[in-house]
């Protein structure tokens, strides 16, 4: 093949350009920190990257769901504990009322008043609202502002559990309805306390009715305890899910980084090798393009 000066120049230029292009590739990778910036860089990796990004977005949402679930369950737990305390006080007052020998009509009246006040407090606790949304905590999906109205009638709506997704497919119920926690109306905890107060106001006091009231309070306490352990169990599940989500988040982040981020030692080595190639191309070009026969003609 006949080689001309122009061919030499063109070849050198092509070589130098391709070296420079490779150098730019490494420079881009190292300066941006990414090997995957557009789908054509690697269609397979793009698919993986998009899946991983979807997974991470879902995990972010799960983490938010878990925060919400934890807040609701914690709030329910503390409301139920408060309710337990009030209930124990009601039991104590009722027992005191049963203790007929020590009581006269006046003291029974006082007990009744205290019980009525307790019932108000209990209703107040039962009408606790969720901090994040302002919905009644024990009202199910009611559109009302409270679970119990001023007369103590349950206005919550049961049958539509409020759930939060805490895993890829795992959803957990995060609400406790008034019915579940405080009993089915009309025979619920508040009615029982009200009845006891009414019994104590009557004279003479019907001991049998008081004893029956006490039994009802006991049943209410059992129900509360059951609900507290239900809430505890749910909280434990949410905690587990939270730990899982954190783990999964770490795994996916590492995966995404492996797909998209530059392997720095490899890119640095590649850059160094390419630099050597580039310098060689430049040096060869300067040596080859220089001499012609002109240098040797007188």
């Amino acid at each position, binding site marked *: 093949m006949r080689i001309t000066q122009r061919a030499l120049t063109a070849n050198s230029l092509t070589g130098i350009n391709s070296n420079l292009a490779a150098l730019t590739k490494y420079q881009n990778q190292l300066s941006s920190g990414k090997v995957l910036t557009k789908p054509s860089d690697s269609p397979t990796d793009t*698919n993986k990257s998009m899946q991983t990004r979807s997974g991470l977005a*879902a995990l972010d949402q799960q983490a938010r769901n878990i925060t919400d679930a934890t807040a609701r369950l914690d709030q329910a737990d503390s409301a139920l504990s408060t309710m337990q305390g009030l209930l124990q006080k009601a039991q104590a007052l009722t027992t005191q009322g049963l203790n007929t020998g020590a009581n006269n009509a006046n003291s029974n009246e006082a007990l009744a008043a205290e019980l009525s006040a307790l019932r108000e407090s209990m209703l107040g606790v039962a009408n606790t609202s969720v901090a994040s*949304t302002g919905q009644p905590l024990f009202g199910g*999906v009611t559109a009302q502002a409270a679970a119990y109205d001023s007369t103590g009638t349950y206005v919550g709506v049961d049958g539509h559990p409020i759930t939060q*997704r805490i895993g890829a497919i795992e959803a957990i119920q995060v609400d406790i309805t008034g019915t579940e926690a405080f009993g089915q109306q009309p025979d619920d905890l508040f009615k029982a306390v009200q009845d006891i107060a009414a019994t104590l106001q009557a004279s003479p006091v019907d001991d049998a009715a008081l004893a029956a009231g006490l039994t009802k309070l006991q049943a209410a306490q059992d129900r509360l305890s059951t609900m507290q352990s239900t809430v505890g169990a749910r909280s434990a599940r949410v905690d587990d899910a939270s730990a899982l989500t954190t783990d999964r988040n770490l795994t996916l982040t590492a995966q995404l980084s492996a797909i998209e981020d530059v392997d720095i030692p490899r890119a640095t080595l590649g850059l160094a090798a390419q630099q050597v190639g580039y310098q060689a191309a430049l040096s060869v070009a300067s040596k080859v393009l220089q001499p012609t026969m002109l240098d040797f003609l007188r």
Partner: protein
Amino acid sequence: MSALSSLNTARQAMAAQQRALDVTAQNVANLNTEGYSRQRVDLQSVSSNTVPAFFSTSTEISGGVSADTVTRVRDAFMENRALGEHASSARLTVENDAFTQIEASFREPGETGLQAITDKMWHSFEDVTGADDAARSTVLQNISTVASSLNATSVALDEQWTQTREDLAATLIQANATADQIGSLNKQIQQATQAGLSANELADKRDGLVLSLADSIGATSSVGSDGMVNVLVGGSSLVSGSTTTKLQLVGAESLDEFSAPGSKGLAVQTDPGGTKVAVGGASGGRLTVLTGTIPTYQAKLDGIAGQIADALNGGNANGYLSDGANGSALLGTSDGSATITARNISLLSSDPKVLAVSSVGGAASADTSNAKLMAKLGDSSGVTADYRTLVTQLGVASSVSAQSLQIQTTITGNIDTARESVSGVSIDEEMTQMLTFQHGYQAAARMVTAMDEVLDKLINGTGRVGL
């Protein structure tokens, strides 16, 4: 045989060597001229008279040397192949550029891509846990962001289409001008050839123009009479001798017009004549991008927009508003059209009340179980997977196009090197030629001196014996 004939032969030799030196000078002068083909003098010895004359025979030695023809050194087959390879290179470059631009419009993979935005939108439904308006407003805001992201990508594709169409029209105008130039050069070459003049430089210039036509519209050439060439594009004649045919772009003015049912399409035609021409080169690439690549991805994006709208509207219609009424469509069109496309998709109302997150109908409720269902619509309707497939397909198509371009660039480079090795000027070679012809000239000049001495002896020395 005259005593002066040797002088004449030497004179011819000096003239021939000088002509050869002139050509060498021309070659050296055009060492770096783009498209210049090196030239050679065809030196031919002139034979003696071989026809016996009546009553006389000639004892002539020979008639000297002639240097009449100067030829261009070039390989016609290689030149034709170069036209084809240059056309392919130009076509692939345009197609690859288009893919790069489409990829940029999709902004994947990343935080600003449609996937990240839609994922965020679907997930935000799970934040709706009660009757509060804040979370609902966020959801609607996210839906609106998805719609405007689809709008932005669609507009980018539209703009790319319009830009490419303008480029194509401009390329054709330029190609028409180039064809005219080739026609007039053909005419000059014909006149020069018929007058027996050298038209090598004109031919070089014309061949350079033919090569640029190969780049821009995929032209090929065939040899005509009197040194002219005929230029063909996709089988139709563009330049025949000195007559040229014009090309023009006819059809849709915008992507909407092109994609509309019953559209006129887009084609390159002869003007006048209206015959459809299958152009190649950069124009062929642009035509492919205009009629295939961009409309395909626009249609796919429209499909994704439709799927998202169907999923959201269906999901919302299945649910109930906070007051228990049925939900209605969330997404519609901004231009009043019946079909939802990526271009016109828009949120119908930003009132948080329109979000039908409840599954309890007929009565006011703070239920949000429909929101939980809608949060899963991205996966259950398959739109997330379909979009991922779309982006992956785009990536594959783009990387295949980049690889083809890389291969074609190497092939075109090799052909150009091969052409250069035939037609290019080599300094070493020209210097050697220069020395050769210089020596030839010196030798011929020495002949003249020798003959001068001989004649001097004859004229001044004869009859002077003993003086």
